[in-house]
C-alpha cells in the first residue's frame, strides 16, 4: 500500500510540469495545473509514508524475473525506515515550495523561464524520491542523475546572466565528479557482492581493504553532493543564484540526499575500522566551524544562508560519525544518540532552512535586493515575514524551545557519553567535538543576530527597504506551516522518536533485536516540559510587563544618539561592522579582502570602502588547479588537428601498441 502510494506520488510530481508546456507562457493556467498535480502527488506520497509508519508497509515492487543484463536486480523499489525518514522532507518541502512558487515565480511575470522552472521543480523531487526508495544501484543512479540534472536547469533559471551561467557550469562539473565516484562505488560493490541489489555485505565479501576503498569513494561522491567542507565548492553560489523556492528545496532537501547516500551505503558495509568514525567526526567538525565562519563574512543574504547549510551538514555528519564509531566499537548508545541526532537534524534543517529561504525570498520579492546592508527596518512593513525569519533563526541556532535544540541536544549527549571508558579509544580524540559544537552554536547565534537585525530591525537603509510590502498569503502560508513544524518537533520530540528509531534500526539491524528506545538514553519528556515552561514563562513575563506599563506614563522618543542632533539611517551599525570582529578573528582561514580609504592629503577626496570574503577553496584551490590543467592540456592540442588521415594514423598506432602489449595468445 505505502509503496504504491509513494510511487504514484513521485510519478505525479515527475509529470506535473508537462501539461504546462502546452499552455500560454503569459498566463498562469499551466502553472496552476502543474501545482495542483504536484501537490496531489506530494500529499499521496506523504500519506504513503504515514501508512508505512503506522505499519502498513507493502511488499517491495519488483520484476517477476531478473533481466539478463542486470544479474540479481530483482527488487526495484521498497521503503524502509531510512527511506521513509528522507522521503518525508522531500514531499513536504516540494508541496510547500510549489505553493510558494505560485506567487514568487509567477508565470505571467516570468514568461521566458516560468515553464522551465515548473517542469524541473517537479522532476527534481521525483528523482530524489526515486533514489531514496531504490533497492538496486541502477535505479539509484537513474534517480541521482534526474535529480542532479534538474537541479542544474533550476540553478540556471536566469541563464541570461553571466554569473548564473558560471555558477551552473561549476555545479555541473562538481555533480558529475560525484556521479563518477558513485559509478566507481557501485561498480566495486557489484564486483564484490555479485549483485546490483542494495543488500548488506558480510565480512566475507568485504574485508577491511574493500571497506576502506568504498568509504573513500562514498565520502567523496556523497560528500560533494552534501557540500561537506572542503568539497562544498559548488554550493554557495548555486544556492544564491537559484530562485528562492528552488534554493529552499536544494538546501533543505537536495544536499541531504548526499547524507542519505552515505548513510545507506555505510549500512550495507560491515563495521569499518574505528579511524573512520574519528575521521568523519573531524570532517563534520571542520565543516561546521568553517561553514559558519564563512557565513559570518557574507553580505548576500542567500549566500549567507548557503554557508549555514554547510555548517548544518557538518553537525549532521558529526552525528553520523559518532554512530559509525559506535558501530566499530560496539556501543549501541552512541549509535542511537548519534544517528537519531543526526537524522533528526536532517529533518530540522529541512524545516528551518526552507523557512529561512522562503522568508529571504519574501524579502527579495519585496525589495529586489539580496544585499543585507541595503535593507533594514522590515519588521515594521513585513511583520509576518519578520516573525517567520525570527523563528527560523532561533531554530537554526539550536536554541530552546525549538527543534534545532533537540537534535543538537542528542548529539551533545552522544558525544558526552564517549567520555565513559571504552576499549581501544582515547576519549580525548572524540570529546574535542564537544567544544567544537559549542563554538558552532555560538557563532551561528552571532551570525543570525547579525542578519535578523540588519534586515528586519532598525530603520531602512535604502528606499527599496523603505517601500517594502508584506507578501501574499500563498507565500506567507507555507512559511507559517514550516514555523509550526519547528515548534511541534521542539516541544514534542517524543512524537518523532519512533520514526527515528525505525530509521536507526534500518541502519543497524542489531538495534532491532535489543528493542532499544531513544527515550531510555535521552530525557525527551524533560525537553518538552522545559520547552513548555519556557514558553509559558515568557508569556507570563510579557503580560507582567504589559500590565506594569498599562497604568504608567509611556512615551515614544527618538533613539538616544548621545546628543548628536542629526542621525541618519546610514549611521546604524551595519551587518558588516557587526561581523567585523569575528571575521578578523577568523582571518587566518577566511582571508577577507578589504579596500580601505587612505587620507593622502590635507583635504581628502571622497573615497569608498569595500570588504568581501571570497571562498578560499574555490579562489585559491580549485581555480588555479583548473587553470593549470587547461594550460597542461593545451599541449595535447598539438596532435589534435582535425585531419582525417592523421586520426586514422592515431587509431592504427593505438591498435598496434595494444596488440603488442596484450596480443599474445
Amino acid at each position, binding site marked *: 500500500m505505502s509503496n504504491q502510494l509513494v510511487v504514484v506520488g513521485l510519478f505525479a510530481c515527475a509529470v506535473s510540469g508537462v501539461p504546462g508546456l502546452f499552455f500560454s507562457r503569459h498566463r498562469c493556467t499551466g502553472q496552476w495545473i502543474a501545482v495542483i498535480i504536484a501537490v496531489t502527488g506530494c500529499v499521496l506520497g506523504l500519506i504513503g509514508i504515514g501508512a508505512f509508519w503506522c505499519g502498513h508497509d507493502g511488499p517491495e515492487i519488483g520484476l517477476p524475473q531478473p533481466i539478463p543484463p542486470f544479474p540479481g536486480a530483482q527488487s526495484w523499489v521498497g521503503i524502509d525506515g531510512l527511506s521513509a525518514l528522507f522521503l518525508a522532507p522531500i514531499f513536504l518541502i516540494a508541496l510547500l515550495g510549489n505553493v510558494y512558487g505560485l506567487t514568487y515565480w509567477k508565470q505571467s511575470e516570468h514568461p521566458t523561464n516560468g515553464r522551465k522552472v515548473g517542469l524541473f521543480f517537479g522532476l527534481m523531487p521525483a528523482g530524489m524520491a526515486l533514489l531514496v526508495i531504490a533497492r538496486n544501484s541502477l535505479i539509484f543512479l537513474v534517480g541521482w542523475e534526474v535529480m542532479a540534472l534538474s537541479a542544474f536547469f533550476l540553478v540556471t533559471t536566469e541563464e541570461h546572466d553571466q554569473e548564473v551561467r558560471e555558477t551552473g557550469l561549476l555545479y555541473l562539473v562538481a555533480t558529475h565528479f560525484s556521479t563518477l565516484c558513485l559509478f566507481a562505488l557501485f561498480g566495486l560493490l557489484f564486483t564484490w557482492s555479485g549483485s546490483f541489489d542494495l543488500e548488506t555485505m558480510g565480512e566475507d565479501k568485504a574485508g577491511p581493504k574493500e571497506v576502506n576503498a568504498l568509504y573513500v569513494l562514498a565520502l567523496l561522491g556523497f560528500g560533494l553532493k552534501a557540500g561537506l567542507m572542503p568539497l562544498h565548492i559548488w554550493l554557495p553560489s548555486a544556492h544564491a543564484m537559484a530562485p528562492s523556492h528552488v534554493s529552499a528545496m536544494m538546501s533543505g532537501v537536495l544536499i541531504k540526499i548526499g547524507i542519505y547516500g552515505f548513510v545507506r551505503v555505510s549500512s550495507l558495509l560491515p563495521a569499518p575500522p574505528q579511524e573512520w568514525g574519528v575521521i568523519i567526526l573531524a570532517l563534520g567538525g571542520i565543516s561546521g566551524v568553517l561553514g559558519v565562519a564563512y557565513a559570518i563574512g557574507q553580505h548576500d543574504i542567500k549566500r549567507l544562508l548557503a554557508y549555514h547549510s554547510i555548517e548544518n551538514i557538518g553537525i549532521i555528519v558529526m552525528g553520523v560519525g559518532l554512530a559509525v564509531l559506535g558501530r566499530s566499537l560496539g556501543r549501541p548508545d552512541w549509535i542511537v544518540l548519534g544517528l537519531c541526532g543526526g537524522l533528526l537534524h536532517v529533518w530540522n534543517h529541512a524545516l528551518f532552512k526552507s523557512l529561512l529561504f522562503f522568508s529571504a525570498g519574501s524579502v527579495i520579492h519585496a525589495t529586489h535586493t539580496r544585499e543585507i546592508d541595503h535593507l533594514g527596518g522590515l519588521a515594521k512593513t513585513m511583520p509576518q515575514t519578520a516573525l517567520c525569519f525570527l523563528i527560523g533563526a532561533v531554530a537554526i541556532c539550536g*536554541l530552546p524551545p525549538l527543534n534545532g535544540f533537540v537534535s543538537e541536544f542528542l548529539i551533545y549527549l552522544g558525544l558526552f557519553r564517549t567520555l565513559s571508558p571504552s576499549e581501544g579509544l582515547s576519549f580525548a580524540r572524540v570529546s574535542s567535538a564537544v567544544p567544537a559544537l559549542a563554538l558552532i552554536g555560538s557563532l551561528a547565534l552571532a551570525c543570525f543576530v547579525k542578519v535578523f537585525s540588519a534586515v528586519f530591525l532598525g530603520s531602512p537603509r535604502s528606499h527599496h527597504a523603505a517601500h517594502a510590502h508584506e507578501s501574499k498569503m500563498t507565500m506567507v502560508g507555507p512559511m507559517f506551516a514550516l514555523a509550526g513544524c519547528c515548534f511541534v518537533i521542539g516541544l514534542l520530540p517524543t512524537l518523532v522518536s519512533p520514526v527515528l528509531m525505525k530509521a536507526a534500526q534500518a541502519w543497524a539491524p542489531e538495534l532491532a533485536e535489543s528493542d532499544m528506545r531513544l527515550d531510555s538514553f535521552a530525557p525527551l519528556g524533560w525537553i518538552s516540559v522545559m520547552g513548555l515552561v519556557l514558553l509559558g514563562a515568557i508569556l507570563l513575563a510579557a503580560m507582567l510587563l504589559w500590565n506594569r506599563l498599562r497604568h504608567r506614563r509611556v512615551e515614544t522618543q527618538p533613539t538616544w544618539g548621545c546628543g548628536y542632533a542629526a542621525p541618519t539611517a546610514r549611521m546604524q551599525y551595519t551587518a558588516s561592522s557587526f561581523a567585523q570582529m569575528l571575521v578578523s578573528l577568523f582571518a587566518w582561514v577566511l582571508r577577507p579582502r578589504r579596500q580601505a580609504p587612505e587620507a593622502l592629503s590635507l583635504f581628502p577626496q571622497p573615497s569608498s570602502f569595500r570588504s568581501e570574503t571570497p571562498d578560499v577553496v574555490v579562489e585559491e584551490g580549485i581555480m588555479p588547479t583548473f587553470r593549470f590543467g587547461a594550460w597542461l592540456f593545451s599541449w595535447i592540442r598539438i596532435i589534435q588537428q582535425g585531419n582525417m588521415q592523421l586520426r586514422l594514423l592515431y587509431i592504427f598506432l593505438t591498435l598496434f601498441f595494444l596488440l603488442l602489449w596484450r596480443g599474445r595468445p
Partner: protein
Amino acid sequence: METFVLNTLHMVVALTLPPLLLGVIGKTKALFAGRVGPPLLQPYWDLIKLFQKGSVFSTTTTWVFKAGPVVALVTGVLALLLVPLGNAHGPVSFTGDLILLAYLFGLSRFFTASAAMDTGSPFEGMGAAREVTYACLAEPAFFLGLLVLAKLSGSLDLAGMLGSHVADNWPKQGASLALVVLSWFIVLLVENCRVPFDDPNTHLELTMIHEVMVLDHSGPAFGMILYGAALKLFAFAALIVHLAVPLATGNPFLDWPVFITGTLAVAVVIGVVESTMARLPLPYIPILLAAACLLSAFGIILLVR
C-alpha cells in the same frame, strides 16, 4: 515533603539573593576606594524603584525591543531551576541539563542583542557585536570545563557533576579542578560583563559592552534586565562555589549557610578584581578568553592517562 521544603528554599534563595551580590560587589569596591559606598541593599531599592516607573520607547523599535528584557528575565529564572544550590539538587534535574543551561543563556543573548540592534543606534550595535563575539570564545571554555567534570564524575547532570564527587576528586585530580575553577571564573567575568572585560561604571558609550546594549531601556523593562543579569551572575557564582568549596555534609542547616557565604565570597572576589585591575584594551580580550579555553583544555589533558 522534605523535597518540597528544600525546593521552596531553593527558589526563595534563588530569587531573593542575587541582587545582594551586586550590593556586595559595590561595597567591596567602595572599601578599596576609601568610600562609604551605597548601602548593601541598594540594588533591591533600585529594582523596586524601576518597577514603579513609566517608560520611554524609541520610535525605531518594534516588539523585539520589549522581548529582550522579558527573555533575559525568564531565562535567568529557568537557569536557576537547573543549577543546584546549597546541598540539594535543583528542582529540575535530568540527564543533559547542563546543555539546556548553556543554551538558555544563548537564548537570552540572542534576544538581548537583537533588542539592542532594534534601536538602530550605532553604540548599541557596537555593544551587541562585542557581546556575541566574546560569547563565541567563552562558550567553548564553559563546555571544556563541563567535559572535565563529566569525565571526573561519570555523570551527565549538574547535580551529579557538582555533588559529592567534587570533594572526592579534589585530593586525586585537584589540578584539573583548579584549572576549571579558574577558567570558569574568567567565563563568569565575561558573561556578566565585569572588569577586565567590561566596566559597568564607565561613562563612555563607545567602550561599553553590556551597559550600552541596554541604553534605551527604561522603567520596568530595564528593571527586568538588571534583575535577569543578577540572576545570571548568581547562577555562575553558584557553579563556582560548588567546585571551589566542595563541602557537602548532607545537613541542610550547615550546607546552606556555607553555600550562601561562598557565593558572597565570590562577589567579594569579583569586587577585588574590579578594584585592582584596569579593564583590558578590546583587542586583548579574545586572547584572555582563548587562555580560559586553554586552561580547561589542560584540565582535560591532565585526565588523559
